[in-house]
């Protein structure tokens, strides 16, 4: 056990190097012309991409409603500040709880479906949340959105400024990745992968796959809610557009771009997507063509994502990363038990 934890693998050295690079970003910023705020945004985006990755890459379900959990996290955080006057971390927790609550409401319906029905159902629920946020102007500010005042940290009357917020994002990101890694490498995580590969067999082995999917949705919502809450605090603002299914699509794209089914893939995908979009939109007003082309190129050329493709090239691709063969016989719900 000790040997395993203390092993200094080359992989871990590289990961450490990446983190050192990120840690030095504020110092490097003036030279590489990438502002801390945008990297913070990219890191928080990664957490949301991880939430999509858990469902798509590991469980095999397309999560096109995760922006709703993201938004619930953001509004939960913002509303708790507005009405309850809580501090920074408490507000974040409120956000995550709001997302969890939303997941508890929709997950019972979502678990009964697989494949594209799951995706469409998640879009439907996501859109309902979107309309709620839009409609209840008095509470949420409606279309104009809500301004969010960054509250004090609970441990001191000290409000985080840009650089400090960046480091907080970095720490939260590291914790998230460690948590994610622990989850997917645990028996629970491996069961999710098994469900993705052959759910019928999992059920024949006596496991209630629906329960695993249920928990996966809850965990996914927690990640997305965390991302949403911190994003609201980063931008000082939340608007209903951030719950729209296009936003969910962005999370899914970042995951697939980087490599769904890998732990570090979403980070790469998010950095390319968030920072890349920022850079390209500065250079040309026709940036949308490039983003669209990125979608197309990614699907055609890198269906396993950048990290996945590179890993596969060297024979080290995770099993959960193959571009899915359409399962022709896959029914919309697992009909093994007759209550489903």
């Amino acid at each position, binding site marked *: 056990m000790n040997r395993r934890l203390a092993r200094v*693998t*080359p*992989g871990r*050295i*590289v*990961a450490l*190097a*990446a983190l050192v*690079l990120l840690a030095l*970003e504020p110092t490097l*910023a003036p030279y*590489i*012309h*990438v*502002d*801390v*705020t*945008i*990297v913070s*945004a990219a890191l928080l985006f990664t957490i949301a991409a991880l939430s999509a990755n858990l469902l798509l890459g590991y469980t095999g379900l397309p999560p096109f409603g995760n922006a709703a959990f993201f938004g619930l996290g953001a509004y939960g955080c913002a509303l708790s500040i507005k009405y309850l006057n809580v501090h920074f971390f408490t507000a974040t927790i409120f956000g995550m709880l709001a997302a969890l609550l939303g997941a508890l409401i929709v997950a019972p319906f979502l678990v009964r479906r697989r494949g594209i029905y799951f995706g469409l159902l998640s879009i439907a629920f996501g859109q309902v949340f979107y309309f709620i946020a*839009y*409609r209840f*102007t008095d509470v949420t*500010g*409606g*279309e*104009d*959105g809500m*301004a969010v005042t*960054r509250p004090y940290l609970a441990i001191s009357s000290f409000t985080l400024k*840009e650089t400090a917020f960046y480091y907080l994002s970095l720490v939260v990101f590291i914790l998230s990745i460690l948590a994610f890694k622990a989850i997917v490498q645990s028996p629970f995580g491996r069961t999710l992968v098994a469900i993705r590969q052959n759910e019928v067999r999992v059920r024949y082995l006596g496991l209630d796959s629906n329960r695993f999917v249920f928990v996966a949705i809850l965990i996914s919502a927690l990640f997305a809610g965390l991302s949403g809450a911190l*994003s609201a605090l980063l*931008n*000082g*603002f*939340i*608007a209903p*557009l*951030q719950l729209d299914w296009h936003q969910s699509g962005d999370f899914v794209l970042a995951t697939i771009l980087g490599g769904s089914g890998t732990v*570090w893939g979403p*980070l*790469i995908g998010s*950095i*390319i997507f968030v920072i890349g979009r*920022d*850079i390209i*939109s*500065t*250079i040309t*007003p026709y*940036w*949308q063509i490039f983003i669209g082309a990125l979608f197309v190129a990614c699907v055609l050329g890198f269906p396993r994502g*950048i*990290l996945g493709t*590179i*890993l596969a*090239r*060297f*024979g*080290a691709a995770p099993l959960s990363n193959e571009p899915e063969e359409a399962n022709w016989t896959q029914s919309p719900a697992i009909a093994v038990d007759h209550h489903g």
Partner: protein
Amino acid sequence: MSGSAFNRRTFVKGAGVGAAALVMGVPAFIPRLGEAADAIKIGVLEPYTGTYAFPGENETIGIQMAIDAWNKKGGVLGRQIEIVKEDEQSKPDVAAQKARKLVNQDKCVALIGTVSSGSSISVQKASSDMGVLFFASGGHTDDVTGKNCTWNTFRTCHSTWMEAHATGYTLAKKFGKKFYFITPDYAFGHALQTAFDDVIKQIGGSTVGTDLTPLGTTDFSSYLTKVGPAKPDVLVVLVQGDDYTNCMKQADSFGLLKKFPVGGPQVELEPLYGLAPEARTGFWGIEWSYSSDLCLGKGNKAAHQFVKDYFAHYLNTQKKPPTARQCFGYVSMDRMLAGMAAAKTTDSVKVARAIEGEKFQSIFIDGGYYRKEDHQLMWPMWVAGIRPNGTPSDPNDLLDVIAKHDADTIEQSVAEKAKICKIVYPS
């Protein structure tokens, strides 16, 4: 075997990280064109993609015209002015991020722009957090100079309250006091409705029907068929932009435009051009017109020169005459630079103090001033009928201005505003 696999894995991860680092490093090599040393940089945040791209481009032209005029005179404080443009995509989160980028990374001393209300509010928040001047040139929501007001933000275009009152009074006078409203069911619509309710209260009118059209409505037929039986004096259309175009088009197809007078708080040339001539009708609030002396002022040299300059430099490329958006952009930038010149600094606090309350003449009649209490530009607003095909000499000249309302008659008084807005300068 396992040894070399680990090496490959390392290489692979390194390549991935390297790719990420490259992405982050690339911007260092992108030259910011035309950077003159010591220039004053102003950040321009406009939508260049999406629904509001056209007004966004138009505002930018106005901004550019102001900059060119000042640079010709030697700039401000002996320095030339430059703008750095960013596409805020009408997305509030992107707008906030770009605002921070412009200030932190590109070292802009002030920000200007936005069209959609959401972006206006989010940039207002971001700029106030950073303590940087922001001119909200084109976002109409009351909140910018209402409950969200901040010392660093000035708003040029008219507020929704002003729009409702200017048109409400004129419509009632022309047609009668029974109104039927088609209102978009979101914040902007609600604000307009509240303002119109105030007008109705003041003139003793009545609302014979209100349709709240939810977000995403492209087919207004269900609402339009209810108008006839209600027999209003005036059909008031509060929806904007593409929704306005759809609604008017469909109203025309139902024959409503021939049966009832129609009007509303705001129309811009941009959506009007999207309508076929048969649907171009009604009486609408407008915020500026390039062709009417009621807007420009008969002897106003600056105003007429502005229009002339636009025709000389931009008509060929844009193919359309200047709209109110060019006016917003120009006035905002012009006053910001004037403020800097007067305060003899680019320090936001000092410039803000120099701007507020200062009366000035500009490219519209009578002149105006940014009110000290809420930083709203107090300038006239007009009501116009529509010429479906323009004039014989200018088919684009669609607005037939018939009335002018002075700012004090249509905006909330200082006392009323004080209940929701309190401007506090940093100590």
